[in-house]
């Protein structure tokens, strides 16, 4: 596809480099090497960048920054580790505060060797990253195109981190509706989610496309009633029947339940609409915070 190969925008972050690799990286932008002739722009803004250049080993202070920048880069994105330190920790690898190369925090696609890495090598690394970028873009498109082959499976406890990340992404739209990011779903920690897996009569479902979880739902049964909750779908793939299918699947997962119950916020029109379409009826409301009133919906098994 035209575009990705011609327009790699980069963001450069110095994790804990001695500045050797940084100077060589910035040297690429100078008149001598001028990477702008390849369409490269040094953006300084992760939201505009495609390629994340990291120099230096990862220490306690830079770990969170790297993770943060990485998550702010829009998909598809590529990470290049520049220099020996970024690749493996280099001569600092055994220091008490160094956790190793960049790949100890985020997935790295291209490694540029050298101490310091030469500008020619860095440019070569960027050019190789373009191939990876194009491949990822194709994968992303095929993900969107193979939604009809989505699998609805029971989630394992090992899926918890991925489900939690998805939950936090999916609930952003809810936080926006209520102007409040203190929703329980956004505050949940990994430990809390993992303990949910251990509850008796608990069912966790996941929607998997090309090996990635794009939707999830959970529920637990108490006597005859199954309480459903957290039907989440990645914002990209909404409005394509995944949520509806998840509810159907989780109802099937409780063959003995006579009654299903679910709750949602009073202003979440989409959720209310979907549940009503699937035969749920409102039976009570309960104030939760000044901004949110829970609406409880129920459905009897026919």
């Amino acid at each position, binding site marked *: 596809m035209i575009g990705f190969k*011609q327009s790699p925008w980069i963001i450069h972050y110095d994790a804990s480099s001695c500045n050797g690799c940084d100077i060589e990286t910035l040297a690429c932008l100078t008149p001598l090497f001028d990477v702008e002739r390849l369409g490269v722009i040094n953006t*300084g803004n992760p939201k505009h960048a495609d390629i994340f250049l990291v120099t230096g080993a990862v220490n306690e202070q830079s770990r969170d920054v790297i993770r943060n920048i990485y998550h702010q880069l829009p998909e598809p994105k590529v990470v290049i580790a520049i220099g020996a330190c970024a690749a493996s920790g280099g001569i600092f690898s055994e220091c008490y505060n160094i956790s190793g190369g960049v790949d100890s925090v985020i997935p790295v696609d291209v490694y540029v060797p050298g101490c310091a890495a030469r500008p020619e090598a860095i440019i070569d690394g960027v050019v190789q990253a373009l191939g990876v970028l194009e491949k990822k873009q194709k994968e992303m498109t095929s993900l969107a195109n193979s939604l009809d082959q989505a699998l609805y499976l029971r989630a394992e406890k090992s899926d918890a981190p991925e489900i939690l990340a998805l939950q936090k992404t999916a609930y952003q739209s809810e936080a*926006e509706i209520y102007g409040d990011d203190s929703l329980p779903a956004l505050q949940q920690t990994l430990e809390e989610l993992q303990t949910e897996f251990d509850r008796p009569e608990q069912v966790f479902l996941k929607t998997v496309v090309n090996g990635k979880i794009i939707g999830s739902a959970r529920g637990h049964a108490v006597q005859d009633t199954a309480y459903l909750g957290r039907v989440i779908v990645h914002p990209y793939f909404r409005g394509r029947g995944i949520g509806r299918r998840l509810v159907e699947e989780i109802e099937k997962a409780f063959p003995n339940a006579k009654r299903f119950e679910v709750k949602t916020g009073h202003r979440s029109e989409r959720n209310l609409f979907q549940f009503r379409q699937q035969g749920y009826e409102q039976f009570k409301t309960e104030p939760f915070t000044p901004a949110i009133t829970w609406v409880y919906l129920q459905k009897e098994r026919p």
Partner: protein
Amino acid sequence: MSPWIRLLVYLVAAPIVGGLLAGWDRRISARMQSRLGPPILQPFYDVLKLWQKENVVVRRSQNYYIFFFLLLAIFTGALFFAGSDLLLVIFALTLAAIFFVLGAYKASSPYSFIGAERELIQMMAYEPMVLLTAIGMYMVTKSFSVDEIAGHGRLLVLALPGVFLGFLYILEIKFRKSPFDLSCSHHAHQELVRGLITEFSGRTLAMIEIAHWYESVFLLGWIYLFFASMPVLGIAMSLLVFVLVILVDNVFARLKWQTALKSAWLVAAVLGFGNILVLSLLR
């Protein structure tokens, strides 16, 4: 040419011409810095890429504002090239800019916030001169209609040299070029990250880019209006002015917003208003 055909030509050709101008801009800038520079088609590659990227937003509603910014930027130029009322064109231009600022405000990040505030200051800086330009053209041609101004027999610039120079001054602000790249600089590593457009990505960023293409064609069209009685000279001058803008961008450092505002108003008062005063006294 009938207004409808002109409108159609504008809608199709403006993004192509605007994109080529943007590519040319980057190329000339690179040459001025003794670099090779990107290919002329670079802006098109950028937009194509951005169109396929994920759209990360703080609030989804910020994208609607940008959509309306694009729509109104196209509308502004459409009114202009269809030969409509110049005052209406200015109104649409301001509205487009306001939508852009609202979009940046909606993103509620400190960078885009300050960018939006500075953009409002820049609007305050250029708005008087834009109005004076329209008034000056009215003084000479006795009409606000772009069609009639373009059809005027004499070279407008001869009667309006001060207004023309003043318009050149605010053109730097409108193109967000140095020394007035306060709200969002084209160059990385400034204090506001990317100011106004920090929080936009993917398709929305591509829309902003396309809106700029339409806008630059419209602004250069206005330069053409000063030379409308000699079309070849008009086109040559528009391009020359564009090169001048790039030259100034590369030569000057950024000004403080106070200086930008004061100097723009001073220019509007002395060159713009002075020119109009002389015109009315000579009559």
